[in-house]
């Protein structure tokens, strides 16, 4: 049986905070869309399809953030054995998989228009696909193991080990010869308007991740509470 300390407080102030966060996220997303399509200039070599970059990069950043939260949540679960850390890690892995799927899809669409192929076994692309498989495996494993404490323990181990792939994805373009474009953000490869667009988009997607994480964590916590009540009823 897991320790059920550290519950998530439900209440009016928290809901108000969520609404404010949602309002800010929505406004930032509108600003990002305006900047992507109307403010940022069209890139000379790849044309309009380069605008995929303004969502592809933030999606990748948010995926790494999500798996970092899984990593931290897993360490804290193993250290403190509190259910809330397992719940946060689980919710973050789920959101992370959604964003990683989008990274792979948008990257593939960009590759088709620029390279002429949907997929190539490039180091960065392959490492990202491996990352997707690791966390899909994490979610599948959670659905197969029924004993709560065992599930949380195994998930925490996989959540920690799986995170090792994130630095590999990040460094792949430097460690191996890849087709994937090298990082240009901090090397002056973007005009100021391109950089502003990217930063606003990163902020919008980070807020979206936080909102989805809060929502998903609350639902998972509620689901666990209901299951405990049901078990008590049947005892």
């Amino acid at each position, binding site marked *: 049986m897991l320790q059920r300390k550290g519950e998530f407080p439900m209440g009016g102030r928290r809901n108000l905070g969520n609404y404010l966060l949602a309002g800010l996220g929505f406004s930032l997303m509108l600003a990002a869309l305006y900047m992507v399509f109307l403010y940022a200039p069209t890139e000379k070599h790849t044309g*309009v399809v380069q605008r*995929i970059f303004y969502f592809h990069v933030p999606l990748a950043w948010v995926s790494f953030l999500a798996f970092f939260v899984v990593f931290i949540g897993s360490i804290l679960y193993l250290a403190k054995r509190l259910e809330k850390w397992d719940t946060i890690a689980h919710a973050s892995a789920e959101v992370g998989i959604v964003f990683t799927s989008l990274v792979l*899809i948008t990257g593939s669409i*960009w590759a088709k228009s620029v390279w002429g192929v949907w997929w190539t076994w490039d180091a960065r692309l392959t490492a990202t696909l491996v990352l997707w498989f690791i966390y899909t495996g994490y979610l599948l494993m959670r659905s197969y193991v029924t004993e709560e404490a065992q599930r949380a323990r195994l998930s925490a181990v996989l959540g920690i080990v799986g995170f090792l792939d994130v630095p590999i994805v990040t460094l792949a373009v430097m460690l191996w010869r890849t087709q994937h474009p090298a990082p240009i953000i901090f090397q002056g490869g973007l005009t100021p308007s391109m950089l502003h667009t990217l930063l606003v988009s990163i902020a919008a997607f980070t807020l979206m991740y936080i909102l989805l994480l809060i929502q998903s964590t609350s639902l998972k916590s509620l689901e666990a509470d209901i299951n405990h009540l049901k078990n008590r009823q049947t005892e």
Partner: protein
Amino acid sequence: MENMGYLFGAYSVIWAVVFGYVFYLYLKQRKLQREIDWLKELIAKR
């Protein structure tokens, strides 16, 4: 403008998947609400 289709496709997929996930969360919330109502009924009957 020749690659407009790819750009449109990429942004459509992003929003379809995000809204799909939000809808999944909404359905889950509805299911949990039904279970809470059932538990309340059960407690009220006792």
